């Protein structure tokens, strides 16, 4: 059920010393939303009342709530839901938004009455906006943050302020210097409320009516803070959240462009002010979002993640251009484009507008060492890696990582980061029978087939039809070293894919595994080779040349 009402809290005044009866002119608007399918019930402003925004100065000063202040508290019905959509709705109403708790947002709506109207109308429009955003939340409006927050969590909003139960103050204590702290256990946190029970203090009105000096002498600073809250006063100022700043630039081109050379000038014009803005904000970009509207009404979008936060305009432009070169704009993958399909060829498509947004992150703090040798800067490495990737392919540039596997050539490429530290897998093979490592192997990533003559179980001659491969009589041979593995996996499995990615494996039926006898041989020509016989196909292959 959706209901919207304006409770009158004029009876707050008897509990607050020095407050006159301003019943006729004091209003707190509260919109409570349970189920959104029932239309809103419009509130009827009381005759003669102008709402909080219309309170006369005399009443405000007597209330000590601050002149013209008005706060809305929006409280999510269910905890754990993301607060971002709620903040977005709140920012549509006011730029001054403060996150009170993980499910409560306070909005400073002072002065909004001139735009929207009385508080009940503000509450109604806020509730409608929340409904449109598919949020289930409560809305309460009050002249202080405390009143708005207490009303937002009160189940019975019809009750007068003085009739609300005192335990509603408990959530408001979090974060207060004199109040409960997260380090307190449940018993400490509940102790003053147990005292109130013993004293017969049940409602906010009861607590507000107590003599302040006596409360201080018996309950200390925390008791005084609770009484201030019971009187609707704020114990901490409203500190609005700083809205995440967006770094975005857009340029509509007078004449469409159709290649990367003029585009580089456009990118420079966009990136220079963005880089300056990042520097002023002490931020770096961790991703570049490029969006270009094309003349065929489609949109080319590209997100370029950056390895480290950086803000050098030249580096950013170079990285963007290299990314566009490696995935050519007009022949790029289809998924980069959104919009209606193109009817013509790719050559007639031109760029109409360019938009760049940078995802900001805290800038890097770099401390150089006097003792260590300087490494290439991340900007240099990013540019170099991008250039190399455009030249030889992204998968062919990086740093090798040994996989924890006994599969031949079990390696993987990863991003080159000379400042990282890695552990060598335990499965890295040591030299057989000695502490010295075997000589480095020049590995054939696609092992060429060879012909091997075998006498009495040992290879005696090697021949190859591949140009440049060693051949001749075998004068020394050590082996066989039998190796097998991966027979329990199939090609479709994750382990099988890993084996295939590592390379050096042979197909064994439908399996991705290896099963072979390895030999170290010395040829008469002096070449030292590692050869193996695939036991499933009985074929010989040259795995590599020791060098």
């Amino acid at each position: 059920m959706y209901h919207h009402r304006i409770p009158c809290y004029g009876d707050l005044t008897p509990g607050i010393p020095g407050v006159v009866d301003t019943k006729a002119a004091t209003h707190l608007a509260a919109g409570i939303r349970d189920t959104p399918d029932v239309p809103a019930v419009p509130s009827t402003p009381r005759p003669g009342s102008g709402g909080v925004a219309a309170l006369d100065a005399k009443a405000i000063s007597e209330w000590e709530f601050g002149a013209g202040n008005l706060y809305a508290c929006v409280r999510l019905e269910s905890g754990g839901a993301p607060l971002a959509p709620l903040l977005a709705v709140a920012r549509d109403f006011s730029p001054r938004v403060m996150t009170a708790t993980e499910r409560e947002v306070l909005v400073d709506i002072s002065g909004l009455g001139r735009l929207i109207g009385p508080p009940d109308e503000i509450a109604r429009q806020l509730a409608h906006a929340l409904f449109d955003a598919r949020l289930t939340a409560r809305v309460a409006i009050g002249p202080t943050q405390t009143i708005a927050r207490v009303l937002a969590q009160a189940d019975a909003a019809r009750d007068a302020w003085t009739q609300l139960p005192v335990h509603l103050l408990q959530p408001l204590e979090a974060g207060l210097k004199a109040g409960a702290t997260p380090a307190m256990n449940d018993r400490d946190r509940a102790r003053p409320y147990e005292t109130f029970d013993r004293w017969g203090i049940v409602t906010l009105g009861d607590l507000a009516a107590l003599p302040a000096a006596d409360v201080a002498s018996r309950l200390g600073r925390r008791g005084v803070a609770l009484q201030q809250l019971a009187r609707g006063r704020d114990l901490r100022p409203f500190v609005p959240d700083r809205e995440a700043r967006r770094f975005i630039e857009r340029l509509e081109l007078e004449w469409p462009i159709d290649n990367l050379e003029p585009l580089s000038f456009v990118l420079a014009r966009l990136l220079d002010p963005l880089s300056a803005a990042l520097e002023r904000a002490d931020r770096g970009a961790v991703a570049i979002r490029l969006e270009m509207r094309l003349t065929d009404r489609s949109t080319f979008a590209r997100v370029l993640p950056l390895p480290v936060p950086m803000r050098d305009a030249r580096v950013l432009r170079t990285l963007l251009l290299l990314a566009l070169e490696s995935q050519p704009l007009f022949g790029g993958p289809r998924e980069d484009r959104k919009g209606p399909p193109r009817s013509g060829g790719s050559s007639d498509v031109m760029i109409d507008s360019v938009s760049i947004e940078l995802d900001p992150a805290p800038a890097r703090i770099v401390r150089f060492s006097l003792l260590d040798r300087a490494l290439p800067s991340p900007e240099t490495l990013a540019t170099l890696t991008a250039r190399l990737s455009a030249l030889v392919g992204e998968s062919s540039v990086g740093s090798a990582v040994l996989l924890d596997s006994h599969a031949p050539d079990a390696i993987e490429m990863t991003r080159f980061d000379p400042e990282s530290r890695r552990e060598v897998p335990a499965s890295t093979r040591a030299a057989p029978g000695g502490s010295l490592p075997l000589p480095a192997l020049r590995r054939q990533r696609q092992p060429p087939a060879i012909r091997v003559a075998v006498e009495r179980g040992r290879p005696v001659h090697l021949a190859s039809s591949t140009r440049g491969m060693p051949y001749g009589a075998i004068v020394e041979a050590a082996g066989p070293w039998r190796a097998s593995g991966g027979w329990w996996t199939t090609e479709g499995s994750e382990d099988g894919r890993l084996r295939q990615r590592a390379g050096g494996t042979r197909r064994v039926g439908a399996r991705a595994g290896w099963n072979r006898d390895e030999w170290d041989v010395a040829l008469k020509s002096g070449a030292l080779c590692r050869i193996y016989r695939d036991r499933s196909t009985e074929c010989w292959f040259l795995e590599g040349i020791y060098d």
Partner: protein
Amino acid sequence: MRAALESLLRARQLDVTLTACDAPLPADRVAPTGDPALDAALGGGLKRGHLSEIVGAASTGRSTLVARLLAAATARGEATAIVDACDTWDPISAVAHGVALERVLWIRVRAPRASAAPDGAGESEGRTSSDTTGASLRALKAFSLILQAGGFGLVVFDLADVAPLAIRRFPLTTWMRAARAIEGRDTVALLVGAERIARSAGGATLALDTPRATWRGATSRARLFTGVDPAPRVVKAR
């Protein structure tokens, strides 16, 4: 007079072409190889800011020597790079020699295959000489990019499996430009090939002549290949 001229050139940092200067270099201007005998022959190690080379036939220990140089450089905390013109570098062997892989930028240049047999046999026959030359030129471009970027302690250009004819097709100014790119920097550029390729005036040629494989075990069934001991011969301008 000659000593005065050499000192003047050195003072103005124009001594890169001095080949007659045997004055010991400061420790930070050489990159030790990790082999005391080789370091002694080189005068402390390979000169930084110069182009050197390792030449030798297959199985003479070129890759083992490269692995030792990479291990020494990465142990000093330097960033290194290897441009693998035929995609034959084996990181597993390198780790066994003590190379810290996270400090090695590996550029794998692979010639496109014309056709691939299902069993993997005969793929190399599918490559044409133009493919090989194109791959070599891309590797050369990658090598130039790394040298120009700077910041690397050792950059290895492995051309050991590239046909000499493809290397001779490189532009004539290639190695001079490479030497100029690292002049005065802390980078050691190292070419690896089957034949002499190039070196700068202060660089060295490490020539590996004959394979020195060591085997163990008396009988044929007990034979065990234990390694190759590279014995480089240092060839310098003087």
